[in-house]
C-alpha cells in the first residue's frame, strides 16, 4: 500500500429516478388535468378583471379584515390580474415538473481562451492594421486627431451650460429686508405679538407687495419659524436677546444641514427637531445644535414691531440660510 492519501471519489451522476407520471399513465393524466385546471383558473381571473373593470363602480367600498375598507373596483381588477398571471405561471411550471422530461443532461464546457496561434494572428492583424493606417509614421495626423477629439468633448459640456444660471450671490439672499412684515403661512396675514401665546409656534413668510408672486424657490429660503417663550427662559447673549421681541424668537425653518423644513417643536424641552436626520436645536440658546448631524445653528432673524404693532424683520438674515456650500462665508 502506498503512502499516497486517497481522496473520496466522485461516484458520478446518480441514476435517474422516474416520477409517478413517467411510469403510471393514470398519474400522467392526473397531472395533465391539474395543469389544465390551473390554466382554466387563469382564464377565470381575467374574467374577474373584465367584470370588475366594467361593472363595479369605483366608489364601492367593502370591509375586509386587516385591509380595512377597500375599494372593490381596484381590488377586483388587481386580484383578477394576479390570479390570471399567477395561474399561467403555476400551470407552466407544474407542466414542466410533472410531464416534461426530467432527466439531467451533461454538456461539456470549453475553455474561452483562443488557441495561441489565433491570439498571435490577432495581434499581428492589429499591428498590421495600425501599420497600414500609418499612425506611427505620421505623428502630425496623430497629434491633430487627438487634439480634435479632445476638444470636441467640450461641445456637450458647453451645450449643457444653459441648464441653469450661475448662482452668483443668490444663495446668500432671502426676501427678508428691514421692515418686512411677517405673515402667516398659509393665510398671508400679518401677525401681532399678542397673536402668539407663550409656547406657541407659527410658520411665517415675508410679506410680498401686491402683485408679486410667491414661488416655491422663495419659500425654500424665506420660511421662518416664530416661537414664543417667556423672556426669562432665554439663555442668549445681549445681541441675540435684542433680536427677540417680547419672548418671540425667529429662526430660519430651513435646516442648516440638508435643507429640510425643521418642523417638529417640542414644547417641554424647547427643542426643534428636523424630521429628516434628527438634528436637534435648542431654542433657548439661539438654536444651538445639541444633537444630530447638523454643524451649525439655524440662522436667527432679528425681529421687532412696526408702528402698527405688527411683527417685522428688524434686519435681513446676517448669514445665508439652508445647507452649507463651498463659498458660503465668502
Amino acid at each position, binding site marked *: 500500500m502506498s503512502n499516497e492519501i486517497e481522496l473520496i471519489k466522485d461516484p458520478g451522476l*446518480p441514476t435517474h429516478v422516474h416520477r409517478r407520471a413517467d411510469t403510471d399513465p393514470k398519474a400522467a393524466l392526473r397531472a395533465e388535468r391539474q395543469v389544465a385546471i390551473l390554466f382554466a383558473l387563469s382564464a377565470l381571473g381575467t374574467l374577474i378583471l373584465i367584470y370588475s373593470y366594467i361593472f363595479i363602480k369605483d366608489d364601492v367600498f367593502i370591509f375586509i379584515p386587516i385591509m380595512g375598507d377597500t375599494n372593490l373596483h381596484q381590488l377586483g381588477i388587481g386580484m383578477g390580474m394576479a390570479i390570471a398571471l*399567477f395561474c399561467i*405561471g403555476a400551470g407552466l411550471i407544474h407542466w414542466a415538473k410533472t410531464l416534461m422530461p426530467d432527466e439531467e443532461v451533461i454538456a461539456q*464546457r470549453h475553455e474561452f481562451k483562443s488557441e495561441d496561434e489565433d491570439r498571435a494572428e490577432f495581434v499581428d492583424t492589429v499591428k498590421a492594421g495600425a501599420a497600414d493606417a500609418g499612425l506611427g509614421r505620421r505623428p502630425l495626423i496623430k497629434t491633430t486627431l487627438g487634439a480634435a477629439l479632445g476638444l470636441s468633448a467640450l461641445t456637450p459640456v458647453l451645450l449643457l451650460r444653459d441648464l441653469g444660471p450661475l448662482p452668483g450671490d443668490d444663495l446668500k439672499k432671502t426676501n427678508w429686508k428691514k421692515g418686512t412684515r411677517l405673515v402667516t403661512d398659509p393665510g398671508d396675514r400679518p401677525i401681532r405679538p399678542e397673536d402668539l401665546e407663550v409656547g406657541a409656534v407659527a410658520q411665517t413668510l415675508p410679506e410680498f407687495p401686491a402683485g408679486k408672486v410667491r414661488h416655491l*424657490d422663495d419659500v425654500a429660503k424665506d420660511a421662518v419659524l416664530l416661537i414664543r417663550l417667556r423672556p426669562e427662559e432665554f439663555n442668549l447673549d445681549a445681541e441675540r436677546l435684542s433680536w427677540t421681541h417680547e419672548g418671540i424668537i425667529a429662526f430660519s425653518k430651513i435646516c442648516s444641514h440638508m435643507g429640510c423644513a425643521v418642523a417638529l417643536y417640542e414644547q417641554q424641552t424647547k427643542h426643534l427637531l428636523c*424630521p429628516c436626520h434628527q438634528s436637534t436645536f435648542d431654542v433657548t440658546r439661539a438654536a444651538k445644535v445639541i444633537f444630530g448631524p447638523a454643524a*451649525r445653528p439655524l440662522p436667527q432673524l432679528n425681529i421687532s414691531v412696526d408702528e402698527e404693532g405688527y411683527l417685522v424683520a428688524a434686519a435681513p438674515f446676517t448669514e445665508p440660510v439652508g*445647507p452649507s456650500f463651498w463659498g458660503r462665508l465668502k
Partner: protein
Amino acid sequence: MTARERIAGNVAGYVDDRTGAAKWMKKNLTKVFPDHWSFLLGEIALYSFIILLLSGTFLTFWFDPSMKEVVYNGSYEPLQGIKMSAAYASTLDISFEVRGGLLMRQIHHWAALIFMVGIVVHLMRVYFTGAFRKPREFNWIIGVGLLTLGIVEGFLGYSLPDDLLSGTGIRIAEAIIQALPVVGSYLSYFAFGGAFPGELFISRIYTVHILLLPGIFLALITVHLMLVWYQKHTQFPGPGRTEKNVVGYPLMPVYMAKAGGFFFIVFGVTAFLGAVASINPVWLYGPYTPGQVSAGSQPDWYMGWLDGLVRMAPPLETYLFGYTVSWNILIPGLILPGIMFTGLALYPFIESWATGDKREHHLLDRPRNAPNRTAIGAMALTFTLVSLINGGNDIIATTFDLTINQMMWFSRIAIIVLPPIAFVVTKRLCLSLQRADRDLVLHGRETGRLVRMPNGEFIEVHEPISAEKAWLLTSHEQLAPLELPEHDGAGVRRPGALKNKLRNRISRAAAVAVPKATETERRELEGHH
C-alpha cells in the same frame, strides 16, 4: 407528416433561408442550464424589470411631467381647491380617475422594490458562492453597475409624483450636490435650472427616468445575459459535476417552461401586492412645498442605508481659507458610498490578487468552504444593515418607545463594533461547519438510535452517508497559502517585499480550513470500529 409539422417546417425554412439561424438554434435550443433555487434570484430582477417597463409605459400615458401650477379639482375631496404641480395632480388623477390606474401605480412601485431586492439577493448569491471568479469578472462589474443605476432610477422614480415626501428627498439630494467642494452650488443651479426647487427638475428627471436610464439598463442587461449564455451558467458541486461540464436541463422545453412560468409567477405576485398592499399613498402627503415636511420621512429601502449613514454622521464642518467643507454630508453621502461600491466592483480582482488564484472556476463554492470571503461578506452586510436600521431610527424609536438619541448612539457605535464581530463570528461558524462536514464523512450520520452493548455501554448508531453526499462534502479544493519571497538569498528585503508580505498574510488568512476528510482516513477509522 401532419399538416402542422409541414407548416412549422416551412416557417423554419423561410427564416433559415434568410438568416442561416438553424445551425445556431439547433445547438442553443438544447443548451443545458443547471438547476438550483438560488439561480432564480437574478431572474426575479429580470422579470421585475420587464414588469417595470410595462407598468411604467402605462403610467406615462397619463402622467404630466410638469411643475406648472394647477388647482386640483379631481375627485379626492381633501385636496380639492389646493394649488399643486401638474405632476402631482396627474398622479392623483392616475390614482383616482383612471380605472386600474392606482393598481398600475402600485404594481410599478412594488415591482421597483422587488427589482432592487432581486438585484441585491442575486448579488449576495453570486458573492457568497464565488460565482464572480474568472471568467465572470465582467459580468460582476456589469451587475454592480446595474445595482448602482437601480438605486438612482428608483430614487428618481419615486421623486416624480412631486409630493411632500418625494420633494423632501430631492431637497436632500440637492444638498448633497451643493456640498461638493468648489463646484457644488454651480452644479445645483445647473441641475435645477436656478434656485431649488425651481420649475424644471420634474421634467428633467422624467427624461432620465423613462428614457436614458432604461436604455442603459436594456443594454447592460442584454450584455449581462449574453455573457451568461456564452460562458454557460455556473453549477453547484455534486456527483458527476466537474469544472469541465455542465449538468442540468435543456432549454427547450423544460427550462423555457420553468423560466417563462416563473415570469408569470413574479408578475402575478406583484399584481397581488399592487391589489392588496397600499404603497406610497401620495394623496396623504400633499403637494411639495419646501416649508413643510411630513414626520417620519423615510426613503425607499434601497436608499435607507444611505439616509441612515447621513443621520449618524457627526456634525463636522471645516472652514478652509473661508471656504466651507461639509464633512457631515460628504463622508456619508459620497465618500463612504464611493468606497463601498468601488470595493464591491473590484472584489473579484482583489481576491484573485490576494490568493494568487488565476484559474477559471465554474463550480461554485459552498460559502463555508471560503470562510474568509463569507466573513467579509457578512461584515459588509452588517455595516449596511446597521446603516439601514439607522435610516429608520425615528420610526424604530417611536415604535419601541426609545429616544432618538439612544437609537443614534446605538448605530454610531454599532457601525464600528458590529462588522468586525460579524467577521470573526462568521469565520468561526464556517470553520465549525467544515468540521461538522468532516465528522459527517468520517463517522456517518447520527441516527438517534441508542443501542446498549453487552457490557452495559450505550452507544448511538451512526449510519454511513451516501457516496454522493460524501463526494459533495469533500470535493472542494483547499488552497495552500501563497509563499511569496520577502527576502532575497542574502536575507535582505527585496523590492516589493511589503506587497508580498501583505499578499502572504491575506492568503494565509484565506487558507485557514479544517482539513477535509479523505478515503484514507475513512478506511483507517473503519479499522478501529
